[in-house]
C-alpha cells in the first residue's frame, strides 16, 4: 500500500498548500476567461445550456458521454478501450490513495477499534492496485517512447503533449517504485523491501502528483480533464 507510514513533513504541507492554491487560482482564472472576465456569466451560460433539455438528458450525457466515452466509441473501438482504461485506472488509483489516507487516519485515531480492521480491508485491494499501476506505467511508457522515438509521432508532438504524457509517466513510475520498496507490491514482493527508501520515493511520488498534476491541471493540457466533460455536458453530448 502506497501511503502506509507516510507522515507528511512541513515541506509536504507547504507543497500541498502551494500547489492547491496555484491550482484553484488557475481554475478561477480559466472560468473567468471563459466568461470574458466574469466567472458568473460563464457558469450561468453553461448551466443554461447543460440543463436546456432537462435533468434526464444531463444525466444521460454524464453517464454515456462523460463516463463511458460514447463519442470515442463511435469513432474507434481501440481508442475507446485506451480512453476507458486510462480514465478508470486514474479514478481507481486516485480512489485507492484516498482510501489509504483514510485508513492511515483511522489507524492513527482508531475510533471504536475499527482502525485496524479498515486498514486490513484496504490492504485487500493491493492486487488490483498493483495490476492497474503496472498497466498505467506500461501505457504511459509506450506513449512517451512513441513521442520520443517514432519520427512521425515526434514531428507532430508539441511541448504541451510531451509534458502531459511525461507527467503521467513520472507519477505512475514513482508510485510503482515506491510500492516496490514498500514490500507490498505483488510482483516484486518483499525481496527488495527498504522502508526508508520507500518513504523517500513516496515523497518523490507525492511531489510529482502535486507539482506535475494538481498544480498544473489548469495551466497545462491536463485541463482537458475538466474542460472536455464540461463541454460535453453543455453541448448535450454534441448531438
Amino acid at each position, binding site marked *: 500500500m502506497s501511503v502506509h507510514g507516510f507522515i507528511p513533513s512541513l515541506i509536504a504541507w507547504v507543497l500541498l498548500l502551494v500547489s492547491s492554491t496555484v491550482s484553484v487560482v488557475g481554475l478561477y482564472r480559466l472560468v473567468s476567461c*471563459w466568461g*470574458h472576465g466574469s466567472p458568473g456569466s460563464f457558469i450561468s*451560460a453553461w448551466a443554461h445550456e447543460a440543463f436546456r433539455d432537462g435533468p434526464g438528458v444531463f444525466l444521460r450525457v454524464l453517464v454515456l458521454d462523460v463516463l463511458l466515452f460514447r463519442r470515442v466509441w463511435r469513432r474507434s473501438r481501440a*481508442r475507446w478501450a485506451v480512453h476507458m482504461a486510462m480514465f478508470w485506472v486514474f479514478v481507481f488509483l486516485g480512489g485507492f490513495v484516498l482510501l489509504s489516507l483514510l485508513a492511515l487516519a483511522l489507524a492513527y485515531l482508531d475510533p471504536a477499534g475499527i482502525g485496524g480492521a479498515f486498514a486490513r480491508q484496504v490492504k485487500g485491494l493491493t492486487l488490483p492496485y498493483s495490476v492497474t499501476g503496472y498497466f498505467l506505467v506500461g501505457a504511459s511508457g509506450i506513449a512517451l517512447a512513441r513521442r520520443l522515438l517514432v519520427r512521425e509521432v515526434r514531428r507532430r508532438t508539441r511541448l504541451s503533449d510531451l509534458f502531459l504524457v511525461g507527467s503521467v509517466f513520472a507519477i505512475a513510475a514513482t508510485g510503482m517504485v515506491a510500492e516496490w520498496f514498500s514490500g507490498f507490491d505483488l510482483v516484486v514482493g518483499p525481496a527488495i523491501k527498504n522502508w526508508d527508501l520507500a518513504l523517500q520515493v513516496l515523497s518523490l511520488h507525492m511531489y510529482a502528483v502535486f507539482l506535475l498534476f494538481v498544480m498544473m491541471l489548469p495551466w497545462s493540457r491536463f485541463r482537458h480533464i475538466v*474542460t472536455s466533460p464540461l463541454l460535453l455536458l453543455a453541448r448535450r453530448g*454534441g448531438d
Partner: protein
Amino acid sequence: MDRFSEIRSRWFTPLQMLELDACTRCRECVDVCPVVRAGFPDGAMERIAGWRRLGTPSSRLILRLVKTPSSELDRVALFSSLFRCTSCGACSVVCESGIACAPLWESMMGASREMGFADAAIEQIAGTVVEDRNPFGGSDRERGTWIPSGARIADAAPIGLFAGCTSAFRQPELGQAALRVLEASQTEFCMLKDGESCCGSILFRTGSWKEYRETVLSMIADLQARGVETLLVLCAGCLKTISLDWPRVYGGDLPFRPVPFSVFLRDLIREGRIGFGSGRPLRVAYHDPCHGGRQLMHELGRDWVFEAPREVLAALPGIEVVEFSRNREHQVCCGAGGGVKAGDPDLALRIAREKVAAVDGMHAEIVASTCPFCRRNLDDARERAGSPVEVLDVIQLVDRMMGS
C-alpha cells in the same frame, strides 16, 4: 482588458471560450479534414492551438522561452488556415469533446477581420453582397429574369419559395425546374422576386454579417407580410443560413418555417400529387451537402436532411441510389464552402476531384445533390477531369422524370 480580449469578447460566446480549451488533440478532426487531405497541414486541431497561443499571455511567454517560430509566423499560418477552411463541419462530427467547430471558425474569422487579417477575395465578395445584395455582382433587374413569363406566382401565400442567388444568376435551370414542379402539383406559392436578396451565407460564414443585418430583417418582414408560413428553400447554403443564422439576427424564432425543397418533393410524391413516366435504369450517387446535411441535422432532424432526398430519388423510376463509402453526417465535403471557391478555386477543385473520382469508381452515371454550390464545384471538377458523370440537383431529376 487588452484589445485582443476586447475583440474576442465581442465574437466568442462563453461556451466557445470553453471550446478553445477543450481540444484533447486526438487528431480525429485532422484525419477527416478535406483541406488536410488536399495537402495543407493545418486542420482544426492546430487552428485551435494557434488561436490559444495568440490569446494567452502565458502561451506567448512559453513560446519565447522555448524559442518556437515567431508568433507573427504563427498568426499568418493561423489566418490563412482559417480562410482556407470549407466550413464543412466534418471536424464537429468526430470531435471527442463535442466542439461545434463551424460556428467557432466563424467567430474566429469575425475576430480576425477586426484585427486586420482578411482574405482579399472573400472581402471582395462580401463587399459585393453588401452592395449588390448578391455575390455575383448582378443587378436587381437581372435577378428575376430566370422566371419564365406566365409563371403563376401569387403575391401572398402560406407557401413561399426562396430561390437563392445561384439559381437566379448562374443556374436558372434549377429554379425553373422547381417552378415546373410547383405548377404541376398545383401548389399556390409566393416569392420575393426582385425583393429577394442574398441570404448572407458567405457573410455569416466569414464573420462579416453585421453590415447585412438590415437586409436580412427586411426580407423576414417581407415574407411575413406575404403571409408565408412555410418557406421552401432550393439551396443548402441558404437553408442553413435561414435556419440557423437568421434567427440570431431576428432575435428569436422566425415567423415562418424554412423547409428543404426535397422534403416538399417527398410530400408531393407520397400524396400522389406528381407522377412519373418510365425511366431507363440509372445509378445515382447522392452527395449530402455539408450545409444542408450534417450542419442542420440537429436543427431539422436527420429524416429531413438525410433521408428525404434519398427517398425522392428512390421513388423515381429506374433509379438505383448508390452511397459513397462515407455518407450522411460523415460525407466528404465537395470543397466549395466557406468562401474557398472564391478565395482558393484551385483548392476547391482539388477537393472536388477526389469526389468525382469516387463517383467514377462507383460506376454511377449521375451524382445528385441539393446544393447548387456543390453542383457547380463538382461540375467544374468533372469537366476538368473529363469524367462522363452528370451532376444534377434532385429537383432537376424529378423535373426530368416528370416530363419523361
